[in-house]
């Protein structure tokens, strides 16, 4: 399920993209797989969904809501974050996704009365392109994205009960021969800067050479810092996934343990992560995945080379 929020011109009914917005576009119409607030008929059984937040700018915190009983809790299973399974299934009340983040979830509709409905609801309050306020709205007061209708007949369900799964995927160990680099994401007079510098058309101004991992135990530790006063950025380095070591000095939350490729960088946060550069040499970008920030040069380039450099602040 691809989640998106769009703006339509009320006079023409056509999709409208605000070409003059540099902060982040928030739509007032909520789409799943290109349809506005669709419904989906389900059998009373478990379903596995892959969720993707396609933005362009909104952060999501998705809950399951029963419109007839707003105080009821509807936990479900989260089994992956971005491109990888978690160490074990997590029973969750909600799943958070910044733009470009993915999650696999398992929802069990067999527990619901036949004929009932359940909404996917985004309850994260966001008022402008800077990022969400981080306030969770009461059930029923958020954005209703999709309605499940449990109206199809019972069928055999041969899928494993996530509650019985104790192990999915181990977290790779951190490399030992490391290069450490820091990246500070700033806003300067409305322009996006990384380590105080702006991107140029050849991507030469903010650039470094990452060392290819040839022995299997070489890697890099990167620090992402956001002091940009109220802005949040989903930071997405290309080519290799990473493992978050700490957020503000603390271990990451359980849904973020494992390999990821988008790091949601909140207000006044510092993220420490490691990554290895395997397989291919070449040029790759790192960018903010708020599409408006990305379009306006919140980006750098790194080249994976046999030797690389040790520049701590590219």
């Amino acid at each position: 399920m691809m989640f998106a929020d769009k703006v339509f011109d009320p006079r023409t009914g056509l999709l409208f993209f605000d070409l003059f917005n540099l902060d982040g576009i928030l739509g007032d119409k909520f789409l799943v797989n290109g349809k506005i607030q669709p419904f989906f008929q389900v059998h009373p059984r478990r379903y596995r969904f892959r969720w993707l937040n396609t933005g362009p700018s909104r952060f999501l915190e998705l809950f399951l809501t029963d419109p007839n009983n707003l105080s009821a809790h509807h936990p479900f299973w989260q089994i992956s974050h971005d491109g990888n399974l978690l160490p074990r299934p997590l029973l969750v009340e909600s799943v958070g996704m910044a733009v470009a983040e993915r999650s696999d979830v398992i929802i069990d509709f067999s527990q619901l009365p036949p004929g009932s409905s359940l909404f996917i609801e985004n309850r994260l309050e966001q008022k402008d392109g800077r990022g969400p306020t981080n306030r969770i709205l009461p059930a029923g007061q958020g954005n209703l994205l999709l309605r499940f209708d449990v109206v199809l007949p019972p069928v055999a369900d041969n899928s494993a009960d996530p509650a019985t799964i104790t192990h999915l995927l181990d977290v790779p160990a951190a490399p030992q021969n490391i290069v450490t680099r820091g990246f500070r994401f700033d806003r300067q007079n409305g322009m996006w800067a990384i380590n105080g510098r702006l991107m140029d058309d050849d991507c030469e101004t903010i650039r470094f050479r990452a060392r290819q991992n040839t022995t299997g135990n070489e890697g890099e530790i990167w620090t992402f810092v956001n002091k940009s006063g109220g802005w949040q950025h989903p930071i997405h380095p290309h080519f290799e996934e990473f493992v978050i070591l700490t957020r503000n000095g603390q271990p990451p939350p359980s849904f973020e343990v494992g390999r990821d490729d988008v790091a949601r960088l909140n207000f006044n946060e510092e993220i420490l992560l490691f990554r290895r550069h395997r397989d291919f040499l070449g040029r790759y970008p790192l960018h903010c995945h708020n599409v408006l920030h990305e379009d306006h040069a919140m980006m750098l380039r790194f080249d994976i080379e046999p030797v690389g450099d040790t520049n701590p602040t590219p």
Partner: protein
Amino acid sequence: MTRISRRAFLATYGMAPVAGALLARRWSNATVSAREVIRERYFPNVVLRTHENKKVRFYDDLIKNKIVTINFMYAHCEGVCPRITSNLVKVQKLLVPRVGRDIFMYSITLKPEQDTPRALKQYARMHGTGPGWLFLTGNPGDIELLRRKLGFTDPDPAVDRDKGNHIGNVRYGNEALQLWGACPGLATAKSIAKSISWVDWPKGEASGS
């Protein structure tokens, strides 16, 4: 769920500014053209005064049927303005001889009370700007309207009030083709010129390189 149609797929992925404008055009079957929507939304036809003390209308005289760059500045700015202006001087040189012919550059003052046409003329002379680049002042209410319509605002009201912290981006666009974008005014001159070339379609001559 049903299969998504090509149109819905494109709508979902039509995120780049250029793609958005093209989509709006291709499938437009309404009476209001996409070009009209863009004009109404972003280009109030306010009266401005150039540094040559000439009266101009923003849309009719400066935007319509032109390739343009737009930035905001003020003459006594001690922040980013001097660097951005000297950067744009280099951009103008890269785009010779087209500036003044089909590409036009506009710098609008954020302090119309201080920046009279005469003060702006002095500023233009000091920076050695060439023909085809206008410095613009006007009624403070009109200037503020333009600033808001053109998206040179910060969502944080405290930051937005601080003129020393004003937005340093350069907007560029091709009015007839409805292609609009923006880039940092402190990017390299070559980079800004290349950005402008993205809306210089189909000629592709604006890169200057």
